[in-house]
């Protein structure tokens, strides 16, 4: 379902996408369209893009085509979802220890909508770190 979402093909385009939005949350998925994990994540993103279009916008970035952010954001996972609001990276405490991104395929649409709503509320209040409504620490058992 990645063909239903807009793609960004250069580092400049990513910067402009984050800068241009004044009112809405910018959600960027870093990965590859052909990757299995990204396919599952893109299914959820494409399904909820229309529902959350009033307060969030979703873009897709190919990390091979745009390698500028790989070192900066440590984009080494198959799928990485990050949140930006007014040119500021919003961190989220999901319980996984990594507060910068969602680096697995989130399969529930309502869970993703809840996370986006929480991030938006915190970002509007000026917070750089928000706590997710659900704890995902059981994803890792070590």
């Amino acid at each position, binding site marked *: 379902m990645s063909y239903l979402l807009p793609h960004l093909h250069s580092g400049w385009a990513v910067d402009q996408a984050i800068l241009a939005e004044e009112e809405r949350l910018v959600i960027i998925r870093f990965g590859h369209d052909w990757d299995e994990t990204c396919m599952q994540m893109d299914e959820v993103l494409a399904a909820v893009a*229309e*529902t*959350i*279009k*009033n*307060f969030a916008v979703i873009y897709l970035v190919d990390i091979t085509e745009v390698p500028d952010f790989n070192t900066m954001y440590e984009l080494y996972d198959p799928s990485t979802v990050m949140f930006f609001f007014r040119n500021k990276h919003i961190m989220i405490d999901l319980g996984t220890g990594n507060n910068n991104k969602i680096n697995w395929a989130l399969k529930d649409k309502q869970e993703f*909508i809840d996370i986006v709503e929480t991030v*938006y*509320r915190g970002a*509007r209040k000026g917070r750089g770190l928000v706590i997710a409504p659900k704890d995902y620490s059981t994803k890792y058992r070590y």
Partner: protein
Amino acid sequence: MASLADSFLADLDELSDNEAYPEEENAEAVGMDEDGGEDMLDLESLNYDDLDSVSKLQKTQCYNDIMQKVEDALQKGTDFSNQGSILEEDPEYQLIVDFNALSVDIENEIIIIHNFIRDKYRLKFPELESLVHHPIDYARVVQKIGNEIDLTLVDLEGLLPSAIIMVVSVTASTTNGKPLSEENLAKTIEACERALTLDAAKKKVLDFVESRMGRIAPNLSAIVGSAVASKLMGTAGGLGALAKMPACNVQLLGAKKKNLAGFSSATSQFRVGYLEQTEVFQSTPPALRTSACRLIAAKSTLAARINSIRGDPTGKAGRNLLEEIRKKIEKWQEPPPAKLPKPLPVPDSEPKKKRGGRRLRKMKERYAQTDMMKLANRMQFGVPEESSLGDGLGEGYGMLGQAGSGKLRVSAAQSKLAAKVAKKFKEKSYGSSGATSGLTSSLAFTPVQGIELSNPQSHGNLLGSGTQSTYFSETGTFSKIKRN
């Protein structure tokens, strides 16, 4: 032509007069006999009901007049078309109007002949007139059946619908009619032939009117076609009459009475007249035909009014109205727009602020601090307070109970809210005042005077309200500390 029409109308009036007053007719007959039969025409009309042969002559005369008028009109029409466009509209329009009147007269004559046939054939088959309503269909069926007893030998295919044929056959097998005599049968068959001939003549007139419809009513023909336009004008009685007619009446022009033969009318088609034969109506889906019929009738009426004042001889207005009809019918067939998913609202909603107001004041009043707690929270200067456990332990009582009476009870202050509640329980208050306890006696002993009556209310008054036992009470004084 006018003289012929006048004579025909006069004959029609005489016929109706004969039907209305039979007794006067006999009286006039006697009078005429005395005169010696001076007026042959009146004598023939008077003998109409008595002699069938005379009615035949009367019919024949009217019929010959009609046929002569039709032939003359057709010849004149041909002459005008041969001549060209000189004075073409006005004479032809007058001709069309006369033909419309003629078709109405033919229709009336057919009805009269139908009544004659029905009266004659009722002896043979009384139920047939209730099964076949149309005069021309009735004449054809009577001509076909004749004097036949067994109707299975008669082939009515093509004359009536199959259901009606079945009902007629079944009814004929149980009818109580008797065969007609040769004389009556011959008269009936002749009347049927005359009715059919009149119907053919009427069709000839309508064909002529239809061929001229493109010039007489171009806008109406553009919408409904020239055939339906000529039928509408013929039924309405002319273009002027059609223009004066409301659209809901135009919708029902030409609607025939539906013969259901006892079947349910729940599934039968609604009544539609000549507009059912238009091309626009036939190309409409069946579910939308009711609305389409109303729409076509409304636009046809507008077009007829344009034509009656000769507003647009080219028919452009009619074509515009037809295009409008097509667009509307096409619009009805469009599906409703798809329902799009509704996006979520922006989730930055804060709780609503609470301002003052009546409700908030009532809430504050209900949960306000009581006078007892106010006294317990205060300390009198220089006087140690009592406590629940003694010697300063436990909860301190502050100024509570230090007014001199030694009691901890404080009379409740009268508030607006309590006053309303007190009204409800006013009837239930009984006994002594609430300020005194149940253990107080009205007798007090003093060492000086012995037995003395004391007023318990006086102590209550000291504690009338919480504020009086505070710093500003009458019994309160400045404390003196004696130096030992």
